[in-house]
């Protein structure tokens, strides 16, 4: 993202043979075709069939699986929950990441130690992150939960209360992603010339003003990239968090789309519906990403 902007001129290399470059990228293409395109295509095909798990009776039913999905009010509710969850997770993860990066960038002592520590959570798998937060916030054995209940007197119960559960999965999902965002933000900040901020400081701009008028606009490519990545992350990779923390409950209030795909397909063995759901999910992500590139990217300044 950031590398090519700083390279002053572009070197070009040519291959003698016309075919050599294609042969060189062949392994990569084969892997991509086998492990990404082929399963995706399979998903598309399955979505048009009604079939039993053992594949003994398969019937081509056009778009009946999709129609059934959109007739189901709970599926639409799940779409809504997914958007709420993704937006909350992305906003929380990005703002915390940005805040921490700004602070770490200003740190005078132990800069590298602080940075390393802040990157650690990214190495934790989402499922483990879920478990850790569950240990903190579970109403019967969570340490923080007991504090919230006993000291603050708040009736905290994510097992029964849908919004409490949502808060818990958003925290667990965002926590992990903060580190990822932090790394990119801090890299972005280091590429901002010191002279700019210093000049602004001499002109009497406050730290806040400097941040909003200089740092943030110059970080906009990073911010844009991270928004796309965070949304994709919260759509797909948060599966582990949901699976370990709430299993989509209570009352389906944290049942995000990707978890429903798993529930219906892998656990419930309804391959047709599950494939249709993953196609919908894929389409949603494509639309969101295209929209972001079309409208948001225009406001991004790639050159400093």
């Amino acid at each position: 993202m950031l590398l090519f902007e700083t390279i002053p001129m572009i070197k070009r290399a040519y291959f003698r043979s016309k075919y050599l470059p294609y042969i060189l990228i062949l392994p990569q293409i084969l892997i991509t075709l086998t492990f990404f395109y082929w399963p995706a295509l399979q998903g598309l095909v399955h979505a048009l069939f009604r079939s039993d798990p053992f594949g003994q009776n398969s019937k081509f039913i056009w778009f009946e699986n999709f129609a059934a999905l959109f007739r189901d009010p709970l599926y639409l509710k799940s779409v809504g929950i997914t958007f709420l969850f993704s937006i909350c997770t992305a906003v929380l993860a990005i703002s915390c990441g940005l805040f921490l990066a700004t602070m770490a960038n200003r740190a005078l002592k132990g800069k590298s130690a602080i940075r390393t520590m802040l990157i650690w959570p990214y190495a934790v798998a989402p499922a483990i992150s879920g478990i850790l937060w569950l240990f903190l916030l579970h109403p019967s054995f969570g340490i923080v939960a007991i504090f919230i209940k006993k000291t603050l007197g708040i009736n905290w119960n994510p097992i029964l209360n849908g919004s409490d559960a949502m808060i818990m999965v958003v925290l667990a999902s965002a926590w992990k992603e903060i580190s990822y965002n932090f790394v990119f933000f801090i890299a972005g900040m280091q590429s901002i010339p010191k002279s700019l901020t210093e000049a602004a400081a001499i002109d009497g701009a406050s730290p806040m003003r400097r941040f909003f008028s200089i740092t943030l606009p110059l970080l906009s490519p990073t911010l844009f990239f991270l928004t796309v990545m965070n949304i994709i992350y919260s759509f797909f990779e948060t599966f582990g968090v949901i699976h370990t923390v709430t299993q989509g409950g209570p009352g389906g209030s944290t049942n995000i789309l990707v978890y429903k795909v798993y529930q219906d397909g892998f656990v419930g063995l309804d391959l047709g519906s599950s494939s249709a759901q993953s196609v919908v999910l894929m389409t949603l992500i494509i639309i969101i990403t295209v929209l972001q590139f079309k409208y948001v990217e225009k406001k991004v300044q790639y050159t400093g």
Partner: protein
Amino acid sequence: MKISKRFIFATLFIFVLFEMTVLAAPVEIHWWHAMRSARGKVADTMIKAFNDSQSEYKVIGAFKGNYDETLNAGIAAFRAKKQPHILQVFEVGTQTMMLSGAIYPVHQLMKDTNNNVNWDNYLQAVLSYYMDADGNLASMPFNSSTPVMYYNVDLFKKAGMGRLSKDTPVTWDEMGKITGKLVESGVEGGLVTAWQSWTQIENYSAIHNQLFASKANGYEGLGTELVINNPLVLNHIKRLKSWMKNKRFFYGGQKYQGPKAEFIAQNAGIYIDSISGIAKLKKAVKDFTWDVAPLPVEKFMKEPQNSIIGGASLWVFKKHKKKEYKGVAAFLRFLATNEMQEYWHKETGYFPITLNAYKSLSNKGYYKANPLQEVGIKQLNRRIPTTISRGLRLGYFVQIRNIINEELEQVWNDSKSAEQALEDAVYRSNVKLRAFENTYN
């Protein structure tokens, strides 16, 4: 997309596995199971005992993950024509397996291999869960349990109550009083339950000889519909809800971890869960005495029916060689011997599946020393199962349990009335049942 990737992985894995083993000498029987850690070791010991007992066959066991993962591995393998001989499948997958067209029913297998099995010697409430409508056994029961009621004897004493009977169940009316006394004596909560659909609706219905779904709970046809919006179940759910007001009942989560934690922390005096929880509680509870009692029943039910089982059974896949099937039959019979069943029961807490094994344990005084274990067997065996209490045979049962969980949670958190929730559960489940029916027609 996720699923397809797993398919590929499973397929590749099976390829490797089979290429390696195809040249070995004795006839190999592959058994894929879901028995983890301690239970897995017990299964391995049983396999070893079989392999040592004869030289013609060699059983190779493979742990394939939890129940979902094992079933999916089996499906992927069958689709790739590399299926194992025996696959362990949990009880809710029974209908899917029966209709799969991929299995060799156990009763047929035993007949074809000239094994004369006296099925009357088996625990009928266990067998009936895996039988078709004509009473033919489709799969071999392996690990079976049933829900019972655990209670904290110390908290009972503090509230001025003694131990409960291990034979005669208390009534739900008495439960109301018991939980009331517990709460009054200063215990944080009365009753929690694990697996609410299984314990409070499926088993509650069976014990009171109340249909869970039409067409004999689905045994008599795919056109079955849920009927849990009946007055009996509705009344039960309403009662539990009314107990929530002063925490005589409270909700601890869908599975067992949450409710068990509440019981261990003494936040709840009573805890309903599978009988196979005995071992776990023995390990976890150090600071209070607890005991086991049968599940409560309604006052009008003078002769309560059997409870129903949970657990898994062993399915035999089609398209293997005849001599291999002889080995499969021999292995299944070996597992049902007294020696194996007694060992299995003692080590895991799951039921012995034959009456012989049960009697033999009884004669050896095992239940005098371990009275807790017997509560479940007695509750399961107290009546001959009726066409209503023999089990449930529903397609998309996993989804249906999820639906019931979701709807009940909305009752517990005041989003819905009990009437509305049960109506919605029935409606949503019937949509699933129709989709399932359409798949096979």
